[in-house]
């Protein structure tokens, strides 16, 4: 069982000025997930009549991409290949002080406490992250189109992106290129994505720039912190696709 000090960013709403506030939590089990530890804190705050800490969460099994949080200076905390809900408290020691902040990026404004608005990602998806297929009943069986195992695997790896925004939060430039690279790649690698490949990459990159994300400088931090292991190769592929579509 652990006793911890938490330094948490509290911000009333989008327009208020926030600040770090210290809290103590006791009797935390190493088997708890980080979000369960946050639940313990919030129970404690509700019992004492204080406002609980707002944070995003949904599936709590690492697939929805909702839980965010910048924990001890890293997106989703110190573990690798996990979202915050999959981060176990055994990663911390009794007596630790844990700093918890919202994802920081101009394109991810804070709504309240640790909750940020990631709709900029949605708008990038709307700009071209789809295939316009005819689903009226005469759609061709996908298995009838030959696709190499390598391309299928790489497309699947790119499609594993859950759009959580850890890449942006981690990047010193708040660049969204790992996210957009993954979304462009998952289609660019498959024959179904070829028809709209050119428009897709141009539109998605234009939207990404419009949202105010920074420029990628290839630090590679995004790849390390990505809970789904999205590779930098996807950014290089997007660069190629973009250049191909531009000339």
């Amino acid at each position, binding site marked *: 069982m652990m006793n911890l000090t938490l*330094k948490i*960013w509290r911000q009333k709403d989008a327009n208020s000025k926030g600040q*770090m506030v210290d809290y103590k939590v006791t009797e935390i089990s190493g088997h708890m997930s980080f979000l369960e530890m946050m639940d313990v804190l919030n129970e404690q705050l509700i019992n004492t009549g204080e406002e609980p800490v707002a944070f995003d969460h949904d599936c709590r099994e690492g697939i929805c991409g909702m839980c965010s949080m*910048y924990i*001890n*200076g*890293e997106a989703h905390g*110190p573990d690798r290949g996990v979202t915050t809900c999959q981060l176990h408290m055994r990663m911390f020691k009794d007596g630790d002080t844990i*700093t918890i*902040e919202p994802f*920081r*990026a*101009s*394109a991810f404004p804070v709504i309240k406490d640790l909750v940020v608005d990631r709709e900029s990602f949605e708008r990038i998806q709307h700009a071209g992250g789809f295939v316009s297929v005819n689903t009226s009943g005469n759609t061709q069986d996908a298995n009838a189109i030959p696709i190499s195992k390598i391309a299928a695997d790489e497309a699947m790896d790119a499609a594993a992106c859950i759009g959580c925004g850890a890449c942006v939060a*981690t990047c*010193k*430039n*708040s*660049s969204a*290129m790992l996210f957009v690279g993954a979304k462009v790649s998952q289609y660019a690698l498959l024959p179904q994505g070829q028809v709209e490949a050119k428009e897709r990459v141009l539109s998605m*990159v*234009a939207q*990404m*720039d419009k949202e*105010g*994300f*920074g*420029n*990628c*400088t*290839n*630090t*590679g*931090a995004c790849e*390390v*912190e990505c809970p789904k292991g999205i590779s*930098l*190769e996807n*950014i*290089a*592929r*997007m*660069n*190629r696709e*973009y*250049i191909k579509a*531009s000339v």
Partner: protein
Amino acid sequence: MSGLLSSSIARKFAMALSALFLVFFLLMHVSINLLSVFSEDAFNTASHFMGTNPLIQFVMQPVLMLGVLFHFILGFILEIRNRKAQVVKYAQNNGAANSTWMSRNMIYSGLVILLFLAVHFVDFWFPEMNYKYIQGNPEDPTRYYHELVEHFQNPIKVGIYVLAFIFLALHLLHGFQSAFQSMGANNRKYTPGIKKFTMGYAIVVPAVFILIVLFHFLNH
């Protein structure tokens, strides 16, 4: 920004292209400098050729200047834009957990190189332009070696050059391999080799520059 550099990917590509051009220039520069260690005559001949050939003087030299200016100006523009992309900073940010110091501090290593270029221009380029084009002195093909050696007799000057080359190495360690990624060259087959080659280059080229400076400082 508008036109050709209107998108983040186009800017990235342009930064990489100008970087590769400057990387190539460094190889040429270090090769000529290295001659000075082995043969005074060979160094004088090469320098005389570089200093008097009209193609190099009036085409390549302005292109190089533009390349340097372009790389620095775009670098500053990117830095300003990137800072705007994250106005509120983290109270705690553990950058070392996921990226190299070099990759996170390109603007600072770049700034040191820019300051060094100012020193380097005052040392060599301005006097050279003055000698040739303002005073209009007759060309002396044997002057270059002595001019070089003279500059590296002051230990402070030698220290400044050595320090600048260390920062050049730090800049290249990230920058050279990063240029390939920016231009879309990243795959499982070639990238490990590219990384090894660029790291070797980033260490060897500045190290040779340092050795040349130290050689002339200690030998004369």
